[in-house]
């Protein structure tokens, strides 16, 4: 008897008890759906993180500061006290030339006096305040630790756009959920320059206006305002152009406040950090956090797989049970099959095919269902993320999970069908006739 004949006969066998077949298929389908949904969701989350790591995004970034930590760099996890070393173009070139460095993004900050003309806090005009603008190369925003909470980032060469941070929101007494209310407003800031004027001396502001185009969470530098690097450079140059070189205004001598070094993937972060430390700068990187996140994701995946796996095992036991019942019911029929010439292995084949077909069908249905469930969950999650001002996820079709779900269900059912099929195969042909 060929496999094709066995399949046809198994199909007919299923028709004997369509209700039972449907329930068996549904059990497998539900288990496969559970497994597919869980793995699709976990896989999407992990893929997203791993993508970021692989392409050397912000997670593979290293913050570099001058060797002598200042109070603003208290979070340096390998701060090495030593003489201050400026981060200048030469240092940038040297670090950029290190092996396994993907790119080096300078960060320039400048102290400015800020006025927010149309902003009030509890009815009072917001007092001018000293703060810091953080200038970065916004054409490489994807490599920087920036998250847009509302609106967008400033244009990379814009001179009139700024993104504010939550620090600014706090100054205004706004919640994070109200972030979008500051988008579109205008702020002015002036970088100071020291002017001696005979006996007296003055600080003159170079005032610029900028429209708030977005609200960001940024870790590139400490300051409430994120701007294209040229804006910060101009402001810094203005302060530094005074006869005192900016010393009266406590301008740091280092041209760059910091560097953001992107390693070629997470695995190179430690190595690059060691090299930068050897060059003479202190660094910090979220690599320990990333490793933890990866482990965490892995654990989640294992747990989810186990949950889905248990479901599949239960479904497999259901298949075994259904087939054992079928074998019991069809003892005489199996005997007749043997009487008219079927060998043991023909009978084995029929029952194995039946089990596999049920599993395959359940796997197909379940994987499709599971993917739909995952989509539903991702819709809910995206709604939540959108409400939080975060980027949504795009659910891919994980080929491995889908293929695994279908093939796995079929294989598991095949295994589950083995005991009943063997039992059927070993039934004596004598069952066909009555008597003892």
């Amino acid at each position, binding site marked *: 008897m060929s496999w094709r004949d066995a399949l046809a006969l198994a199909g007919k066998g299923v028709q004997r008890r369509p209700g039972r077949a449907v329930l068996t298929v549904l059990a497998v389908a539900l288990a496969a759906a559970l497994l597919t949904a869980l793995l699709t969701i976990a896989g999407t*989350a992990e893929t997203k993180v791993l993508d970021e790591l692989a392409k050397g995004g912000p997670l593979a970034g290293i913050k570099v500061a001058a060797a002598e930590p200042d109070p603003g760099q208290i979070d340096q996890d390998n701060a090495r006290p030593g003489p201050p070393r400026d981060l200048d173009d030469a240092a940038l070139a040297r670090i950029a030339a290190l092996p396994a460095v993907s790119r080096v993004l300078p960060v320039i900050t400048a102290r400015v006096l800020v006025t927010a003309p149309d902003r009030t806090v509890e009815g009072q*005009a917001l007092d001018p305040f000293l703060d810091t603008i953080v200038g970065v190369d916004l054409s490489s925003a994807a490599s920087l630790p920036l998250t847009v909470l509302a609106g*967008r980032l400033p244009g990379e060469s814009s001179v009139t756009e700024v993104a504010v941070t939550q620090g600014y929101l706090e100054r205004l007494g706004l919640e994070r959920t109200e972030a979008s209310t500051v988008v579109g407003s205008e702020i002015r800031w002036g970088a100071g320059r020291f002017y001696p004027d005979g006996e007296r001396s003055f600080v*003159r502001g170079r005032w610029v*206006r900028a*429209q708030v185009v977005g609200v960001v969470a940024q870790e590139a530098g400490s300051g409430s305002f994120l701007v294209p690097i040229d804006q910060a450079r101009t402001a810094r140059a203005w302060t530094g152009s005074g006869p005192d070189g900016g010393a009266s205004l406590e301008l740091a001598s280092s041209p760059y406040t910091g560097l953001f070094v992107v390693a070629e993937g997470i695995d190179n972060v430690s190595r690059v950090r060691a090299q930068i430390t050897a060059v003479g700068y202190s660094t910090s990187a979220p690599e320990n956090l990333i490793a933890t996140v990866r482990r965490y994701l892995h654990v989640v995946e294992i747990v989810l797989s186990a949950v889905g796996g248990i479901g599949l095992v239960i479904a497999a036991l259901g298949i075994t049970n259904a087939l054992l019942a079928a074998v019991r019911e069809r003892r005489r029929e199996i005997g007749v099959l043997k009487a008219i010439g079927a060998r043991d292995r023909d009978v084995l084949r029929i029952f194995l095919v039946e089990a596999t077909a049920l599993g395959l069908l359940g796997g197909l249905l379940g994987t499709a269902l599971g993917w739909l469930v995952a989509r539903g969950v991702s819709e809910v*999650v995206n709604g939540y993320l959108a409400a939080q001002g975060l980027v949504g996820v795009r659910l891919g079709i994980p080929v491995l999970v889908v293929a695994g779900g279908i093939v796995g269900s079929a294989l598991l059912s095949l295994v589950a069908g083995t005991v009943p099929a063997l039992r059927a195969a070993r039934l004596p042909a004598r069952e066909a006739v009555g008597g003892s």
Partner: protein
Amino acid sequence: MPLVAVLLAVLVAACATAGDQTTASTIPPADNTGPPVVFVAVGGGETTGVRLPDSLRQSWPQLLFTEALPRRAVLVNLSSPGATVAQALDQQVPAALELGPTLATVWLTRGDVRAGTSVAAYERDLELVVRRLQDSGARVLVATGPPSPEDAVPVGPYGAAAERVAQRTGTQFVDLSALDSELGVAGHRQAADAFMAALATDPP
């Protein structure tokens, strides 16, 4: 269900670390085209806004900067209270020229009135101030204001001298002598409006 919470946490973590940009850009890209606009204000206490509670918002140069100039403009207020024309020529004008101004305002009356500068010397030095600023390519506006409440000396001759300088140099003259001598918040508002009106007309 804790599982759902775990999934949400994982997804949020994935997204929060991703650093993508949001899809919706509510503000259209700024128009950065056009020549740079650099506005320098040369003057004394009237330009600094010494009597204002919030000079960074209420002084007329800030009002002019905010309301009449494109957003890409830059303002540097070089004025110092009590400055005379001679001091301005010595200190403020070189600083202004460094900036490559495209618009410059000159309002210097009270320092010279108080210092007792002769009208002739005032007129001579003011013309030098204006001409140097003009030579750098800036559009220049010359203003004169009301007397200081403490001053007994009439400011009329200085105002007339300033107007003659404006005529000789072909710059616009902004007559603010009618303003309240206290030059408070309302005075600065009026001064800003007068400068804006002058800016709106073509130079002579």
